[in-house]
């Protein structure tokens, strides 16, 4: 009975007893969820346009962050480093399209997946080779990002602390999603991207260059990766440990469906908030640290009821 009580009642009593702490937990989860959603966004962009499950998105985040910080360490001013990093991501996108994707057209999913893991190995080696393997401090203030925090009074004695960088992260994420939505829906290239996502062959037949589109999509994913790298780097620091964290984007994708941008956002928030609440209120029962797998379990349970994810396109199978 005690155990049941601990599982079913105690956490909720804790939540009610300290509402300010509960809101703080939700806020932390919300911010983590936004970062997951940003990583997942990179996956979705590429999956939609080329059907490639881009495992390298995590390392692209690290690589972009490392390039930015590394350039700044070498004496390049922050704004120039940012522009150069964007250039590097563009170059990377062109190289990936030219030397990998173009050669692997029409291969089965698993081969494409493996090629992105191969890219991961390559980028890990390259990043460590050029910039060194030790964690680096993100150049937050040099980039003009806010630091410090605001404490908001809540109720009679509660206090909720908002880190400014977290608020900035949320705002930037929203702006970026909005920009992507406009880009996809209002521009010529965006329409071409959607055409390619719908049907490669039909897009080819009306004169859309697949190669060009893929390079653009990888570049867009690179920009998303850079933003994620800056935000995440500002919260902790830029290190290769991020690569494992980036795997969290997978349950997010599962929840949202591989092809849906709103799905990535909603999935990210569900996973971020769910795992923080689980970790804080239920984690101590089993010894803590359940954050590492809780997200996957949440996704697994969701999948059992909706195999295509929350927003994914319905899977129709034919013989």
């Amino acid at each position, binding site marked *: 009975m005690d155990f049941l009580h601990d599982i079913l009642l105690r956490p909720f009593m804790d939540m009610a007893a300290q509402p300010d702490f509960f809101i703080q937990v939700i806020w932390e989860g919300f911010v983590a969820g936004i970062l997951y959603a940003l990583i997942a966004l990179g996956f979705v962009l590429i999956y939609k346009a080329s059907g490639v499950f881009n495992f390298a998105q995590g390392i692209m985040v690290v690589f972009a962050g490392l390039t930015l910080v590394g350039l700044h360490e070498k004496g390049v001013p922050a704004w120039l480093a940012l522009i150069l990093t964007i250039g590097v991501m563009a170059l990377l996108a062109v190289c990936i399209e030219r030397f990998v994707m173009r050669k692997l057209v029409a291969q089965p999913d698993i081969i494409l997946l493996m090629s992105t893991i191969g890219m991961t*190995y390559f980028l890990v*080696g390259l990043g*460590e080779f050029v910039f060194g393997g030790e964690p680096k401090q993100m150049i937050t203030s040099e980039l003009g990002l806010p630091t410090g925090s605001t404490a908001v009074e809540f109720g009679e004695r509660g206090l909720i602390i908002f880190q400014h960088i977290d608020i900035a992260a949320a705002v930037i994420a929203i702006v970026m999603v909005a920009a992507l939505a406009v880009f996809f829906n209002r521009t010529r290239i965006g329409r071409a991207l959607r055409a390619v996502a719908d049907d490669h062959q039909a897009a080819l037949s009306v004169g859309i260059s697949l190669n060009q589109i893929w390079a653009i999509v990888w570049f867009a994913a690179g920009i998303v990766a850079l933003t994620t790298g800056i935000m995440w780097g500002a919260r902790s620091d830029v290190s290769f440990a991020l690569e494992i964290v980036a795997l969290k984007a997978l349950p997010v994708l599962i929840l949202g469906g591989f092809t849906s941008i709103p799905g990535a956002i909603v999935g990210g928030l569900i996973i971020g908030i769910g795992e923080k609440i689980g970790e804080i209120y239920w984690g101590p029962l089993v010894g803590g640290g359940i954050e590492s*797998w809780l997200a996957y379990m949440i*996704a697994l349970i969701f999948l059992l009821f909706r195999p295509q994810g929350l927003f994914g396109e319905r899977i129709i199978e034919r*013989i």
Partner: protein
Amino acid sequence: MFYREVGQFKTSYAADQQVFPIRQDRIGVAVILLVALVVVPWAGNDFFLSAIAIPFLVLALATIGLNVLTGYAGQLSLGTGGFMGVGAYACYKLVTLFPDAPIVLHVLLSGFAAAALGIVFGLPSLRIKGLYLAVTTLAAQFFFEWCFIRVPWLYNYNASGAIEVPGRSMFGVTLTGPSASSTARYYVVLLVVIVLTVLVKNLIRGRIGRQWMMIRDMDIAAELMGVRPLHAKLSAFAVSSYLCGVAGAMFVFFYLGAAEPSAFSVTLSFQVLFMAILGGLGSLVGSFFGAAFIWILPILLRWGMPLVGMPLPSETVTQLTSMIVGALIIVFLILEPHGLARLWQIGKEKLRVWPFPYA
């Protein structure tokens, strides 16, 4: 000229259905077995046996395990490392609970623990397919990793949190622990791998294996033709996890000697997946090729780079190795997406019609 089945007539079904129907193949296999059983232990030094041959065989077995699931039954898995860990920890528990039983028995039994968990985590595969399923196997991977850290019972409440292999002997020969000779360990691993490979080969040739392949090629059609997906998929998960579990147990007991939870991280899963894919999905001989390629290539690079006049610090070598391996994997996928096993097959075809370009 030499490799040709002309004149080899089959007069019975048994002869027609044997694993190696061509005489030259049988001779080749016998030669390989002879080399593995006699020449390698005789000619190889301690370093070769313990750092190359033993892990190669163990990882080849894990690759076969993954190949059963991904290559034959078509269920993509990223949790191989976790299941190997389950085998290793199960074996460790068995060894400490029943110290008198022979170690090989422990190793073979520990696979069943992995198989049972494999069935549990295989259940979602009845509803989930493809890349979505891969993520659910990642759930298994991270859950197991967490268990290895947070459940002290698994490592007998060690202060270090790692499992250390106790010295055990069989028939008067020390097989595990620091004092075991590399030759003895090599023989145990080799025999286990040979026996299990033969068993898997026959499983695949038989009814169960054909069902796996039907499920892989098109599960709905297979279901309509009377294959029960529940049985086929779960048996694939069970067999695959069993092999991975045994491989994991051997990985710790005959190769590493002691293991921390990080030994069975998701990196190991990817490594084994690479072995399966580069070797060739759905091919047993490919599993050995893939394991050899992925395991031995970095070792060669680490050795070779200083030899060609690049005296580099060791971390630079590691970084360059990572880059070269990554690039080679991509190159390989582009040149031969069906893996080394396909190259092997093409080579055999060419040999058959040699000296003519076609027959």
